[in-house]
């Protein structure tokens, strides 16, 4: 088990390195840098002015050396200008003594995530703040999604082919067919607009960042939860129907155990192994949903900064966003693998 986790962590680290390099490569392609220079400097810059701006701000040089600097394994760049020394590890122009005192390496390995050109702030503070908002959203999504999906799946899979099964299965197909931007729009139209007139909820979740209430927070949570719910419910149903046809359930039934007890005591525990992995693997999709819903409901969280950073080619923020999301995805995969081994006695013992 220890070796397994170690090997998986190694693969995980390699994956993260490859992915961040891809993001780095794509954001540092010349047309992207040119756009960045023009938005940061001015839009009428000549080609030479763009080149000198890029060089003065450390965007020159080879892709690999810049990536190494970002990672913190190569020394950060320094330039000598009329105003003093500038560099990756210094803020603004500083004198020679201060430049000597500044650290040589400053990448993410040293805990320095860089500076956001879009928000004019340290990337680490932005990420921490926004991730908190999204964390709250995700928590309530999971609280709503997981129990209801499992309940629907178990109820549907209990008696295969019954009316309950048919209607619940159709309902879960319906939710998997409704992406967030469709269900969100429908919910906003039905529950918040003055045309329909129900006005039960608020159409934006902006106020939920400081003060989440049922009124302003339920719709975004529901929108994300619904899309994932159908898939988990269908997996639970499949696993439940499989368990219900197993030999030991038939034995229990022939012994005269009540249906209630068969479901709760014999079937449920074995039927919930597969959905566990599915829930864990659902995280990458939830991340997608978060981006859409945060845009739709104007909730400024992690997904919102992804859109902002990508739209403005904010390289270091974008890299930080991808590092965080890639780690979320890979860690949930790891947990799902370990959990599967742990939950399934057949694998655990052999």
């Amino acid at each position: 088990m220890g070796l397994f986790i170690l090997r998986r962590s190694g693969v995980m680290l390699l994956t993260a390195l490859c992915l961040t390099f891809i993001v780095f490569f794509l954001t540092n392609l010349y047309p992207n840098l040119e756009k960045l220079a023009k938005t940061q400097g001015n839009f009428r810059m000549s080609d030479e002015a763009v080149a000198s701006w890029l060089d003065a701000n450390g965007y020159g040089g080879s892709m690999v050396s810049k990536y190494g600097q970002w990672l913190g394994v190569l020394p950060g760049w320094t330039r000598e200008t009329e105003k003093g020394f500038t560099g990756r590890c210094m803020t603004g122009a500083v004198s020679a003594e201060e430049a000597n005192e500044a650290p040589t390496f400053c990448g993410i390995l040293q805990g320095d995530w860089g500076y956001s050109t879009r928000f004019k702030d340290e990337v680490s503070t932005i990420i921490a703040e926004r991730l908190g908002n999204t964390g709250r959203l995700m928590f309530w999504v999971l609280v709503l999604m997981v129990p209801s999906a499992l309940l629907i799946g178990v109820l549907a899979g209990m008696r295969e082919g019954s009316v309950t099964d048919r209607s619940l299965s159709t309902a879960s197909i319906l939710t998997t067919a409704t992406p967030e931007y469709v269900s969100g729009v429908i919910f906003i139209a039905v529950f918040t607009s003055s045309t329909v007139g129900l006005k039960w909820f608020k159409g934006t979740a902006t106020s939920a960042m400081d003060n989440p209430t049922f009124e302003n927070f339920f719709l975004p949570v529901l929108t994300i939860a619904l899309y994932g719910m159908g898939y988990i419910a269908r997996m639970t149903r499949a696993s439940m129907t499989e368990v219900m046809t197993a030999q030991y359930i038939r034995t229990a039934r022939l012994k005269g155990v009540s249906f209630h007890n068969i479901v709760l005591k014999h079937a449920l525990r074995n039927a919930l192994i597969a959905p566990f992995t599915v829930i864990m693997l659902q995280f990458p999709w939830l991340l997608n949903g978060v981006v859409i819903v945060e845009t739709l409901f104007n909730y400024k969280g992690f997904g919102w900064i992804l859109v902002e950073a990508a739209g403005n080619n904010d390289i270091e923020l974008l890299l930080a966003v991808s590092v965080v999301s890639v780690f979320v995805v890979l860690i949930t995969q790891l947990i799902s693998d370990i959990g599967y081994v742990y939950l399934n006695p057949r694998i655990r013992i052999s």
Partner: protein
Amino acid sequence: MEPLSTFEIAGRIIYQLSPVWFSLVILYAASIGFKRRLGLYGKLFDSPIGMIGFGLVMFWVFTGIYGAMDMIITHDPLVQVSGMKNKVPGTPMNGATEADYPYYLLGGDNLARDVFSRLVKGAWEVIKIAPMAAVFAFMVGITLGLPAGYYGGRLDTTLSFAANLILAFPVILLFYLLVTPEIVATGVPNYMAIVLFIFPIIFVGVLLNSRYYTRPKVRNLVLPLVLGIIIWFYLQLVSNGGYLINTPAYSIPGLPRVMDMFDIPGGILVVFVSVVFVNSPTVFRIVRGLTLDIKTRDYVAAAQTRGEGPWYIMLWEILPNARGPLIVDFCLRIGYTTILLGTLGFFGLGLPPESPDWGSTINDGRKLLSIYLHPALPPAFALLTLVLGLNLLADGLREESLKD
């Protein structure tokens, strides 16, 4: 003129769609009549869920095709008519002449364009991209997944690692990185197109060669002919205006313009490529898993004993026996591709801003959602019903294929 009542709107929409109803009735009558001779497709008409799903899908397919032929639409989807901004469904058209259709059936959007016509044209945007993207994703996934599952070992490790790498990427981040004008200018999507579109050539080439290599006469006739046509199409697909890649810094010449019958606009190409790119790792994993399962069967061992080559076994023994789950996944994948295209439109990526595709229309409509519902809701329901249809179809197919 008076605005139309709800019933009149519904009646007129149903009348406008009459070619679609006509085609659906013919299709269903023919399919149900001959269903015993049509294999899995015929069996679909035994399951009510499958029939409903197939009906929904074909409804949008016909709507898209006829819409592209300008049959159903009532107005030009891009033309703005003054005085029709945000007008409710059934409003008479402002200043309509004899030649114009007198009403905006589903109202006007925030740029005073006809919502109904845009909806119909939007169906074509999906129908022309989603199935083809799914086909290409399957070609890539199958061509890589079969050897990974069959040979295993280092090849499997490498390919699986690459697939997991793409899967670990949040899809939206990938889209934001790939589908921007700056990236298009560097030619990255063209390189990806060149690589991804090569897989169908490999697939067909190996498929035919492994079948006919014992009969050189047939092979020497069929293989060059088929491959020649496919490669010609491939070159037409990847070369644009005489160049494979044409960036300000450098360019690589491709097929001469004389032989190039069609050009794909850069925006559509990048959308297509990124959708294929996102979908193929999942197909790869499914095919690999199925291959791992099927290669332990007796008929594979029998083929190995007969001395068949590995590619013959993969393509003519394993692949046909994996078709059930693959067909089901194909339907689901078209649905997922539709959702992805909608996502791209929703974030305003790739497709031109005037484009009538459903995602962009939903995004335009949502800004005024608290006052005007009619621009955003029709495309939302359209997307919902199409994806629902594909899911139900997949469900019906799964049930029927399990009955054997």
